[in-house]
C-alpha cells in the first residue's frame, strides 16, 4: 500500500501544527511566478503514457479529493514550499495585472495560508460554507509545457467545475489550470497551482470552496 506517511492519516491536528511561518514568498519566488506565466503561454505537447501516469493521474486524484472534501489529504499533495494561486485578472497574458507581487488576487495561499483555509473550513462556523459546497471537477486537455526550471514538470489543463450549495443555484466555473510538479523526498508533489478563471474579473457569488 501507500508507504508515504504524508499521504494517509494526515489529520486536522497535524495541519494545526504544520507550517506556522511564512518564509519562502520573496522576490525570487514572485520572479518565478512571473516566469511561469510566460511559460504557460508556450506550445504544449500531449502527454505520453508515462507522463499521464505520473501527472494527469495526480491531477485527477486531486480533483477527486476536493470533490470528496478530503482537504487534509489534498493538502498533502502539495510540497513544503507551495502556492495555490487564483489571479483576479482576465485577458491573460497580462504581465502587469497578473503579477501577484503588485496586485491582489482571488486566492494566493502559501502553505501556511492553505493550512489556515482548511482549518477555517473545518471550524463548522464558516457560514459561507453552511451548508457546504459540493463540487464536481472535470479536467481535460492535458499538455506538457517546456520549462527552463530544472527538476520541474509543467502541465496545463482545461477545467470545468460545478459547485452546489443547498439553497443556492449551481455555479459553473471554467478556465485553465497550470500545475508545476516537483519531486520531494522521492514523491511527486504539486509545487504551484495556478487557476485562471474565465470570469476572473467578474463579481463572484461565493468562492470559499477550493478550485
Amino acid at each position, binding site marked *: 500500500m501507500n508507504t508515504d506517511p504524508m499521504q494517509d492519516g494526515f489529520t486536522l491536528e497535524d495541519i*494545526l501544527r504544520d507550517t*506556522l*511561518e*511564512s*518564509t*519562502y*514568498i*520573496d522576490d525570487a519566488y*514572485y520572479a518565478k511566478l512571473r516566469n511561469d506565466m510566460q511559460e504557460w503561454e508556450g506550445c504544449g505537447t500531449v502527454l505520453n503514457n508515462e507522463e499521464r501516469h505520473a501527472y494527469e493521474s495526480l491531477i485527477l486524484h486531486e480533483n477527486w479529493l476536493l470533490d470528496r472534501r478530503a482537504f487534509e489529504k489534498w493538502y498533502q499533495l502539495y510540497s513544503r514550499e507551495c*502556492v495555490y494561486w487564483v*489571479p*483576479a*485578472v482576465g485577458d491573460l497574458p497580462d504581465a*502587469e*495585472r497578473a503579477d*501577484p*507581487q*503588485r*496586485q*491582489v*488576487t*482571488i*486566492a*494566493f*495561499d*502559501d502553505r*501556511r*495560508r492553505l*493550512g*489556515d*483555509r482548511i*482549518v*477555517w473550513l473545518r*471550524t463548522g*462556523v*464558516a*457560514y*459561507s460554507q*453552511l451548508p457546504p459546497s459540493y463540487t464536481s471537477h472535470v479536467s481535460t486537455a492535458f499538455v506538457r509545457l517546456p520549462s527552463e526550471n530544472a527538476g520541474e514538470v509543467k502541465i496545463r489543463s482545461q477545467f470545468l467545475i460545478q459547485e452546489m450549495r443547498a439553497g443556492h443555484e449551481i455555479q459553473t466555473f471554467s478556465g485553465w489550470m497550470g500545475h508545476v510538479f516537483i519531486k520531494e523526498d522521492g514523491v511527486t508533489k504539486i509545487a504551484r497551482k495556478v487557476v485562471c478563471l474565465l470570469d476572473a*474579473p*467578474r*463579481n*463572484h*457569488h*461565493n*468562492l*470559499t470552496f477550493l478550485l
Partner: protein
Amino acid sequence: MSIQTSSPHFDHLIEAGRVHRTLYTDGDIFDLEMSRIFGGTWTFLAHASELPKPNDFVRKRLGKRPVIVTRDRDGNFHGLLNRCTHRGATICRHDEGNARRFTCPYHNWSFTNTGDLAAVPIEDGYGPAFDKQELGLGKLRVESYRGFIFGTFNTELPDLKTHLGPSAALLDEWLDRWPGAELQLRRGQTKFSCAGNWKLIYDNAADGYHPGYSHASLLRMRKDRYGGGVDMQWALGNVDEGLQTVSDCGNGGTFIDQRAEIKRFWDQSAPMPGESAYERVIKEKLGDKADAALDVVMGSGMNLNIFPNLLIIGNQIQVIEPQSVNKTHINWYATALVADDLPDEVNSLRMRLQEDFPSFGEPDDLANFEECQIGLEIEEVEWVQTGRHLDTGKEYIGAKGMLSGPVSDELPLRVFWKEWLKRIEQGNLGVAK
C-alpha cells in the same frame, strides 16, 4: 423611470428604534433609491489613481446609470452620463482607457471627454434648429477630495469637503499613516456578488456588534492555529467594555474606531504570505523606521463609511454597486502606499494582507446578509431592530464633535436612516447639466 413630481412619504417606515422590512424588499423603493439617493447626494465615483494621466477615463455606475469618469487634458475630472444624446446608445463600452473623444458606435456622433457634442456625420441632414451645443452629454457636478472623486446631480449641496464634515479629517488620518505617501488603487480587485439588498452591506460596515459572532470561523481558526493576541481579538467578549467606538460623521456617514485597541499594528496583524522574508528585508532597508513601515502594512483600525456607497475599511476601499433590490455587487479595491522612502516590500505584503479578510471574513458576512434577505421576505414579522444603546445613556459627544457610542451601538443604523429619509423625500434632482 420618470422624474417624480410628488413624493411618497416613508417616515412611517422608519421609527426611533426600528425600521420596516419592506425598505429592504420593495422593488419600487429600490428604484427610487437608485435615482434619488445615488446621485441625489455626493456619491463616490472613482479614485484619481484609476485615471492617472490626462485623457484617461473609467466606466462606472451611479446607481443604475452608466457613467464615464474622465480626466481632461488639464487634469480636471468630469462625470458624464454614458448615453448618446442621439438615440440613447451607450457611447463608452470599455471599463477604462485613454480617449479625448468618445464616438458612439451606432451613428458615430462624437463627444469630447468634457461632454460636448463635437461632430455629427452628414450634419446637413439636420435643419436650422439643430444646435450641437444643446446636445452635449448629461453631466454631473463633480468634485474630489484627496483623490476621492464624487459626483451628484444636486446643486443645492455644499461643496464636497463641507459635506464630508468630520469624514474629511478622518480620511486625512487614514491617508496620512505614512506622511507624504500617495495612495494608489491597484488593478486587482476582490469582487463579490451578494444576494441581498445593498443596505445590508452599509448596515454592516459600522456594526461593531457582529464580529465576535458572524466571524466566529476566522476567530476560531486564528486561535486554534496561532493562539491569542493575533488580529481582531478585540471582537471577543463584551465589546462594549473595550476601547472601540462608533460615531456619527453627519450626512449618513459613520465611523468605527478600533485604533485604541491596537498597541502595535504589525504585532497584531493577521498572518500573510511573505511575512518573514519581507519583514527581514524591510528591517534591513529601513533600520529605525522599519517598525513604522511594517505598521502601515496592517489595516488602519478604521472603518469609515461615506453615504451611500463608499466604505473605507482596513486598507481597502469597498464600493457598493446595487444591482437590484436583492442583489448587490461589492467591489474591494486593494490599495498601495507609494512614497520614495517606503520600500516596495511594504506593498507586496499589503497585497497579501488584503486577501485575508476577503477569504476568511467577508464571505461569512455575505452569507448572513443573504439569510437576512430571505428572512425579511416574511410579511408577518415586519420590523428590523435598530435601537441598541438608543436609551442606555451611553452615547456622548466624542472626538471631532461627533455623537459617539460603545461599539455595539446601533447608532450607525439610525444615522443611515435619517439621511436616507432626507434624500428619498427630496425627489429626483436629476437635471443633467
